[in-house]
């Protein structure tokens, strides 16, 4: 069994969502996670808020701190969960169920977590 991070990339909900939609997303995401947890394959997860987010970039050997861009782009990471799976394919199946994918252009990234045994 390997561990995989399922990384959610989507738009900042603030600009588009109504209270009702946010509640619906929350319910869907919780149902998705519960489905994985019911198979005892959910390890952990966290959301990554957009506000108070910063990017530190190396520009001409200087560390520049910026406020983004977040929000306007679909590729921003909104959160991730870690699951146990026997193969990357199983992890991809979990990822397919994520409600984030209902949004056009949103994506899920599936990444294996290094075990620290030198093999990965």
């Amino acid at each position, binding site marked *: 069994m390997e561990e995989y991070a399922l990384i959610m990339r989507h738009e900042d*909900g*603030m600009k588009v*969502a*109504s*209270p*009702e*939609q*946010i*509640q619906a*997303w*929350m*319910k869907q*995401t*919780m149902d998705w*996670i*519960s489905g994985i*947890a019911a198979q005892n394959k*959910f390890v*952990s*997860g*966290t*959301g*990554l*808020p*957009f*506000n108070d987010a910063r990017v530190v970039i190396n520009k001409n050997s200087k560390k520049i701190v910026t406020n983004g861009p977040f929000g306007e782009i679909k590729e921003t990471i*909104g*959160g991730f*969960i870690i699951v146990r799976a026997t193969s990357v394919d199983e992890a991809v199946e979990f990822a397919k169920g994520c409600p984030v994918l209902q949004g056009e252009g949103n994506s899920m990234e599936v990444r294996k977590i290094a075990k620290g045994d030198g093999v990965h």
Partner: protein
Amino acid sequence: MEQQELIPHLFRTEFRKIVAVLSKLFGIEHIEVAEDIASETFLSALETWTFNGIPKNPTAWLYAVAKNKAKNSINRNTVFTEKVVGQLDRSSESLEIEIDLSSQNILDSQLQMLFAICHPAISTEAQISLALRILCGFGIDEIATALLSNKETINKRLLRAKEKLRIEKVKIEFPGESEISQRLEIVLTTLYLLFNEGYYSESQDLVLRDDLCAEAMRLTYSLIENEQTDLPAVNALFSLMCFHASRFKARQNVNGEIVLYQYQDEALWNQELISKGGYYLHRAARGNTLSKYHLEASIAYWHTIKEDTKEKWRNILMLFDQLLQIEYSPIAALNRTYALAKINGKKEAILEAEKLKLESNHFYFTLLGELYSNNDNQKAKMNFEKAFSLAKTQTDKQTIQKRIDQF
């Protein structure tokens, strides 16, 4: 992870509460800051509850986060701080602002907000959109769907309305004793139209349409709960809404098509709402005010009796006559004629109907079609066909087509 079910519409409900309290605190010119803080609060919940489970007291959690965000927002924005907080209570040197999310303050703020939004400077159309956003917590998409409009139009309408509120320096407060009945009139018109938007809407989203009616009823009821605004016209409007809402289930078949009153299955009428309507109509009879809501509620009351009796139609006719004196409307004039037909027969009603000359109104020709049917079916069909060509909505066309097919 512990799974707890959230109350349906919790975020929508809390949105309007948080926005009302914060707008009252900040002043209406900062209504957008209040909206942003409320939205950010729910996004925080989304980012936290999704992974850690729903807290034991979700509402308390939301209020704590909203308060924090409000304080941060005040501290962060110096212009905002000087302008707004300068007038707020400051205890000690540290900026300690009391953000009162008690149920009493929520209730007061929401009622005062209702009066602020129904300000004479703002068009009725804009008042409805603003009420849906601020007092009901609807999103732009939801408003656009409910009002059969598009996002851009609604967005522009809301922006302009908020600008108007700023320019007019509208205060979020109760109107004074002398002003209250005049201001209340606009509030009631807006609530009446909000209800009608849901009741007569062409929107395919049935849930949203019911929500609109439910919200209009909730806001009207909040006026009854408040001593100052518990006035006869308010009770009459609430009664009218109860009578109409009692027929929700019966007025639509499984295919979502409208079922006309005479074909409705009365077993589907909601008796609880009918008796509620009766109760509030009785309460509305205190004093000597007779508003159009009194008359419309009384007409609606008689429609809760399915049986066709002369007494029923005589009462309805009398009420329409009174209504037309208070406020003329083509629909009331047409309905009056229909009642007349029920009492004095179709022939007399035809003569009365043709005097109305509402020749751009499809209901006019529908009525003539009904009156001619069984007397002169050729004329009846002709009138229904005219009605069909004038009808604007799909539902109306469908209903009329069914009538044409019967000949």
